[in-house]
Structures are given as structure tokens and as C-alpha cells.
């Protein structure tokens, strides 16, 4: 039997998690699992990459803050030096609110973009959407996509959809 990928549907998260573990034991390659809500530890069990973008977002926040501070300092000291209320030109405490806001803004934008960059979205169409049954993945069904032997895939239970 040739190696193909199969889509299995389960009624709840326990059966899905159980099937993920059994599929790996029986030598099937687990491609992905789909659920209507986040299931803790599912990504680790599926064996997909768990990327940590926290450091990237942290760096973005730092550079946003640095940019904000640099903008204030440069324009207040060099580009447009102007005496206001007897304060020194480089009155840095007054620049901190904007420094903070710029940092948060850039970090938040990075966090948002990183979701879609990592998830490969936006993507208007996907072959899985051709399955009428897969429409339930967002609100009712728990799906498992495996590659491997037909018999082994059949053994996992659930509703079987060929791909």
C-alpha cells in the first residue's frame, strides 16, 4: 500500500490526544492536528516546532523604545533646540512617556505579525477546505492528519476521511 496522508475526525479532545500518541507508536507520521480551541501540549505531542518569539518581541520593544528616545533627544537637542520653561535641552525624563509608548507599539506590532508569519497566514485557500467535513474543525470536530500505511491509519478509530 502506498504511503498517503489520511484525515481522521474525532468527537473530543481526549480521543484526539490518544490517537496522536498511538499514531506515533504505530509508526505513522503525524502531520498536524486541528481543534476548535487551543489544547495545551497538543503541539508538543504532534511533534511540530514550538517557536519562541518572545526574545524577538522583546528586542522589538527595546528598539522601539530606543527609537522613540532617540527621536525626542535628537529633535529637542539638535534639530530644533528651543528653551521651554527653563528646562535643559536634553530634559530626558520628559521623553520617557513617548519612549515607553513607542516600545510597546513596536513590540505589539511584532507580536501580531509574528503570529501570521509563523502560521503561514493569511492564506485564502487551503486544500483542506475542499473537505466538506473539515468545516466542522473550527467549532465541533477534532481532526488528525497522518501520513503512512492505510491499515495503521484505520486502526486509530474516529471517522475516516481519505485525502
Amino acid at each position, binding site marked *: 500500500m502506498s504511503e498517503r496522508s489520511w484525515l481522521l475526525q474525532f468527537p*473530543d*479532545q481526549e480521543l484526539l490526544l490518544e490517537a496522536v500518541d498511538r499514531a506515533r507508536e504505530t509508526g505513522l507520521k503525524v502531520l*498536524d*492536528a*486541528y*481543534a*476548535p*480551541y*487551543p*489544547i495545551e501540549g*497538543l*503541539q508538543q505531542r*504532534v511533534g*511540530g*516546532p*514550538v*517557536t*519562541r*518569539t*518572545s526574545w524577538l*518581541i522583546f528586542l522589538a*520593544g527595546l528598539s522601539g523604545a530606543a527609537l522613540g528616545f532617540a527621536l*525626542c533627544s535628537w*529633535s*529637542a537637542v539638535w*534639530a*530644533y533646540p528651543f528653551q*521651554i*520653561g527653563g528646562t535643559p535641552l536634553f*530634559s530626558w525624563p*520628559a*521623553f520617557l*512617556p*513617548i519612549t*515607553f509608548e*513607542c516600545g*510597546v*507599539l513596536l*513590540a*505589539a*506590532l511584532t*507580536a*501580531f505579525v*509574528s*503570529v501570521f508569519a*509563523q*502560521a503561514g*497566514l*493569511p*492564506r*485564502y*485557500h*487551503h486544500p*483542506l477546505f475542499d473537505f466538506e467535513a473539515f*468545516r*466542522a*474543525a*473550527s*467549532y*465541533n470536530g477534532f481532526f488528525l492528519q497522518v501520513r503512512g500505511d492505510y491499515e495503521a491509519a484505520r486502526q486509530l478509530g474516529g471517522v475516516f476521511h481519505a485525502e
Partner: protein
Amino acid sequence: MKWIEGRHTPETVSARIAGVILQPPHQRLWWQLLGLSALGVLWLVVSIGVLLYRGIGVWGVNRPVGWGLAIVNFVWWIGIGHAGTLISAILLLARQEWRTSINRFAEAMTLFAVCCAGLFPLLHLGRPWYFYWLAPYPNRMLLWPNWRSPLIWDFFAVSTYLTVSLLFWYLGLVPDLAVMRDRATSLWQRRIYGFFALGWRGSSRHWSVHQRAYLLLACLATPLVVSVHSIVSLDFAAALVPGWHSTIFPPFFVAGAIFSGFAMVVTLVIPLRYLFSLQDFITERHLDAMAKMLLLTSILVSYGYLCEGFCAWYSGLRPEISTALDRFQGVYAPIYWVLLLGNSLAPLCFFWPAARRNIRVLLVVSVLINIGMWTERFIIVVQSLSHEFLPAAWRLYTPTIWDWGLYAGTLALFSFLMLLFVRFLPVLSISELSKQAVEESHE
């Protein structure tokens, strides 16, 4: 603790919430309300038009009361927005599960409130068409903004707040838009929801990056929300006007913002759960939890009032003492008494559990708080300015029809956007409630 009533599965949760959009109940009422708010929006457009054509003189502002209703409304609206971020971000980090039922709705409220708020400082500029001078950009006049002014901090804080709130809201919305795409029956609904769902498939990879980013955005939104109203309060605290120049202002404003925002959430959520039969998800226990938040923030705000009075007395400065006494005895005293009634006295009834679970009491008190918080901003802005240092300069301020027109117009704009939101987007978070329903069924 069980937060969802009845037995629910992801299927029933999504059917109930998507049903609000796909088989909309109360269509007639919705159209009537939408029509009414559209008229109000028209009135807003007229008020703005008159303002632009004839200038700031159409308002009641004068010397020394240069900040009239425009700034009162700005602070009030921004404050209302804060509850949405508090519910969605801070309560998420604090693992308060009851937030799940109200966060989506409260976040939408935040967005619309910030939109209404943003209008006022711009219109208040006098020549609003030059508002972009606030932004730092290289220009042929070789001018740069004055970074030492709290007003420019405001510009940065409010625009960052709007952007981050929008990102947070949309990120939470994407999986639910996918539910709408998949549950919708008509082709166009599927296409439109599908477009905005960005191809979400709910794969484990999607969820893992989504959850991580959602949590990080919550971590970013938490200090942000505290910074925004602190910065708004610095507009006042950095000035020398008696009644403004006080270090208590930033925490006092943040507490007041959360207080007024929660009151608005309660005011809106009571009809919402009733009209759309969402009592299973927004239970009496949720209302109880919100009433406790109202009680807590009411006490914090009342502490702020006490502190203001104490600081005025302790300063020994005659203008400060005179302003503080004028609140009780002056022309604006009735407004101050409304403030104390609405913000400090009425919420105390929430010490009784029966009051926290009584819908009528909740609705009446939350509306009183909304009014009370508006009068608080009126007292801070108008009363303080009208009672400046020199008695010779004292002058009262009376709002004109165009002041009120703008305020009423933004109320209409807010309800117009809210009505569109409940009609076209899932009012509660389907994926989060599904997860909660499954977890609770295991308990």
C-alpha cells in the same frame, strides 16, 4: 468554580453565539435603534460642521475655562475604554476565568470608546485640520513637537492604545471568524468571514503561536493601559491650577477609568444577555464579580477624593483650600454632590450580595456611576479652571448647544458602532468559551 450554566459543548457554544448573527433575533428593534443612532451620528456631523465653519467660539469656553465639555468627554470616553483592556489583558494574566464571557464585548467597547474619545482633542485644537502637526515628521518649517508637553504624550499614548487594542481584539477574533466562515450558510457570508478569518484552520501550530502571542500582547497591554490614563492625568497634574497639581492624579485617574469602564460594561451587558439569550454564558455570578470590581474601584476612587481634600488642607495654600471648599459650596456644588452620590455612595450597596445579583439594582447603580464619573471629569476640568488663583479672574462656564451636540453625537456614534458589532461579529469569544465549557464538563 463553574462559570457556564447548563451543559455546553463546543458545538452548542458556537451554535448559540453564531446564532445571534446567523438567525438574528429582534430585527425590528435593531433597525429602530440603528436608525435612531444614525440620526445621532448625523447630529454629530452637523455639530462638527458648525464648529469647523464658525470656530471654537460656538462652544461655551472662555477665560479662564479654556477646557470645556470637549476635554470632559475626552477623559470620560478614554476612561470607559480602560475596562475592556483590563478585562481582556489583566484578568487574563490573573487567570480570572470569568473574563472569558465578557472580554470580546468589552474589547469592542474599548475600541469604540477610544474612537469617540480621540475626536475631542482634535476638534479642540481650534484648527483641527492641522492636527497632523502633532506627529513628528520632517517638514519644511523645520519644526518639531514639544516633547515636554503632556499633550504630545497624549497623542502618542492614545494612538498606541488604539492600535494595540485593535491588534489584540482582532487576534482574538480570527479563530471566531473562522467559526463564522464555517457555520455561515450563504455564499457571501462565507466569503466575507473567510476573507477576514485569513485562512485560519485551527491547526495545532496555529493555536500554539496564537496563544503565545495573545499572552504576550496581554503582557504588553497591561502596562500600556496603566500608562494611558496616567498620561491623560498628567495633562492636569503637570499644570499649576489649584485642584490639578497633585501627585495622586495618575493612580486616581487609572482607578476612575476602570471604575467607569466596568460601569459601562455592566450597563451594556445586561440588555445584551437578555436580548440575545446569553444568560448561560453571562451568568449572575459574572454580574456578581463585576459588581465586586465596581465596589473595589469605587472605594479606590473615594480614597482619591479624600486624598484631594486632605492634600488641599495640608498644603496650607489658600487657592488650593478655596478650590476644595468651592466644590462643596460654589455654583457647581450640586454637580459635586451628584458625583459623590454616584461614585462613592451608590456603589456601597454592593456590599450586600443580594444587591450584586439584582439586575435592576445593578443597572441603576451602573448608570449612576456613568453619570457620576462624567460629573467627576466636569468638576476636575471646569470647576478647577473656573476657580483659578486670582478671584478677579473667576468665571463660570455654561456649555452651549454645540457642546452638548458633540457629546450626544459621540454617544450616538458609540451606540451605532456597538449595534453594528453585535449584528456582524461574534459578541462572545467562541473558542475561549468552548475551551472553558469542555474544561468545566470534566470537573
